[in-house]
């Protein structure tokens, strides 16, 4: 089965980390990285690893449609809508790692299969990727009335884009807690901690469930979903057992990254790129199924 060819838009931290993760994919093959600065570290690294590089942005990319089947957009929310239009016009797919959220929110382990055939999907936020699987899992066994997440990340892992647009993080995450996690109401809080050495990404999920007697089912659901997330983020774990207090459940998580391009404490960035590659893999699988079905149809 031929792997789908990947273009990464954006040669910054996220784009560069994605490159390493795509190299390990069974369904995707790294083809081209697109930036605007020929001297950027991402472009240099991509060159050194033998990939095509384009340094005049989206214009350069759409001029070479043979180079890619699927685009990962690791630029900015502002640029994304234009990028999306131009990529979709070529009949190709795009995975959005910016907070633009034009396409549906996707969180592997929760709703990936439902949206793997969409042309444009959005990866929510790092805090969303780390916490929504938990909300979703609990909601499968006990109706979640309210879910609140607190993401604490090392100051060094929060880039200028996140900092200048911190409201987008809280709003987008809260929306996805409801849309994807299934909570009736969602809230998100983000805290930056400048401690040195930098702290590992921590996420706390507080939920209020409508039924107070589902402790065993909830624990089992959480443990299962943690194992599922560990399939693509091995450093995703609970730091201690959930705390139950009447209808409130609190879950404490930490996310250690794979250390591809980011340091391991940047679990927030790592879980975004790892989840995006999961989504790419699923899109590739579905793509091949459609192709196979069409071929079967033709040969009849």
């Amino acid at each position, binding site marked *: 089965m031929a792997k789908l060819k990947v273009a990464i838009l954006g040669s910054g931290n996220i784009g560069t980390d994605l490159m390493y993760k795509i190299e390990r994919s069974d369904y995707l093959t790294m083809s081209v990285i697109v930036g605007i600065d020929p001297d950027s570290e991402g472009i240099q690294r991509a060159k050194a690893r033998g990939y095509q590089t384009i340094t005049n942005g989206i214009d350069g990319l759409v001029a070479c449609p043979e180079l890619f089947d699927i685009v990962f957009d690791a630029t900015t929310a502002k640029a994304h809508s234009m990028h999306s239009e131009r990529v979709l016009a070529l009949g190709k797919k795009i995975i959005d790692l910016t907070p633009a959220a034009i396409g549906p929110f996707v969180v592997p382990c929760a709703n990936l299969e439902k949206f793997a055939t969409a042309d444009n999907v959005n990866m929510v936020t790092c805090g969303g990727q780390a916490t929504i699987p938990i909300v979703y899992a609990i909601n499968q066994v006990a109706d979640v009335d309210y879910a609140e997440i607190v993401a604490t990340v090392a100051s060094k892992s929060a880039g200028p884009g996140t900092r200048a647009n911190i409201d987008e993080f809280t709003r987008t995450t809260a929306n996805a807690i409801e849309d994807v996690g299934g909570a009736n109401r969602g809230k998100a*809080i983000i*805290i930056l901690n*400048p401690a040195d050495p930098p702290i590992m990404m921590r996420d706390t999920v507080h939920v209020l469930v409508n039924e107070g007697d589902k402790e065993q089912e909830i624990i089992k659901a959480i443990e299962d979903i943690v194992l599922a997330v560990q399939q693509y983020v091995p450093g995703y774990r609970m730091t201690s057992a959930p705390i139950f207090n009447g209808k409130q459940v609190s879950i404490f998580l930490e996310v250690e990254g794979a250390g591809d391009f980011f340091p391991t404490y940047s679990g927030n960035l790592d879980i975004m790129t790892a989840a995006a590659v999961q989504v790419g893999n699923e899109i590739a699988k579905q793509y091949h199924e459609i192709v196979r079905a069409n071929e079967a149809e033709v040969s009849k």
Partner: protein
Amino acid sequence: MTKLTVLDVTLRDGSHSMRHAFTEQQVRDVARGLRKAKVKYFEVSHGDGLGGSSLQYGFSKVDELKLIEAAREECGDSAISVLILPGIGVKEDLKNAVKAGAKMARVATHVTEADVAGQHIYLSRELGLKTVGFLMMAHMASTSVIVEQAKLFERYGAEIIYVTDSAGAMLPHEVKERVAALKSHVSCEIGFHAHNNLSLAMANTIAAVEAGATYVDGSLRSLGAGSGNTQTEVMVAVFNRLGYETGIDLYSVIDVANEVVAPIMPRPQEITGSSLMMGYAGVYSSFLLFTQEAAKKYNVDEREILLELGKMKAVGGQEDLIAEIARKIANPTQTVN
């Protein structure tokens, strides 16, 4: 005579001590008293700022927007300030607070993270509010870092910049150094917000004013997080004696403190072993009640939890660490998958 603006935070910082359970009537009574005393600005918000109502910090008993509206109806010539912490509250919250009656926004970040406040400070200016940048946990950064962060606030449009001793951990000479450095490096007015965990709130406030601060925070009967803030009515008396002009009527401010606030206080704002440790270890003052609860639940020493929080360099807002630390002290061997 040098003029000082005393800003009363009873109805915001006091919200921590009240477990965010101020009623509309209490807010009206305090607001009326502050108006009568001619306090120019007073703050009304959840303790953790607009949007702070949550499982993490405690739900507000009464929606803060309702409380702001009630305060506006009572405040006369006094003006209402609101606090907002980017990452907790969002721009929409600020717009709603303005509709409810807020005239000043204080945008608060950890002392090293001023660059998360740009969009909120721009909005605050756009909405015509008096705009303050509030650098929390100021004891955790060197003077040069504070200056660099204050310059960001200045660039975004803040008119006043606060040195905020959230942990009540600073000593007078440290306050003086930081305020003096800001005074000489930024064109904004400088403010100071104290907590009394080391019994230094008044002394630190004097140090700040002597170094050039012109805005100072206080709360009536010290009703605020940890051991509370500089006591507003005491501060008015002290600055009268020192020859500063606060414009506040001393008897009226003593009256609202003693007749209105004292009866609603759940406990005296004394310096207990735990609040002392917060000042000593440099821990965010609003962690106090959460720490006491966790210590009781897991049967561990409050001071050990606080020391651990200090060691971990926890910043404001990380209340979720407390129960976890307490449980780990109680069961050091417990692990999960």
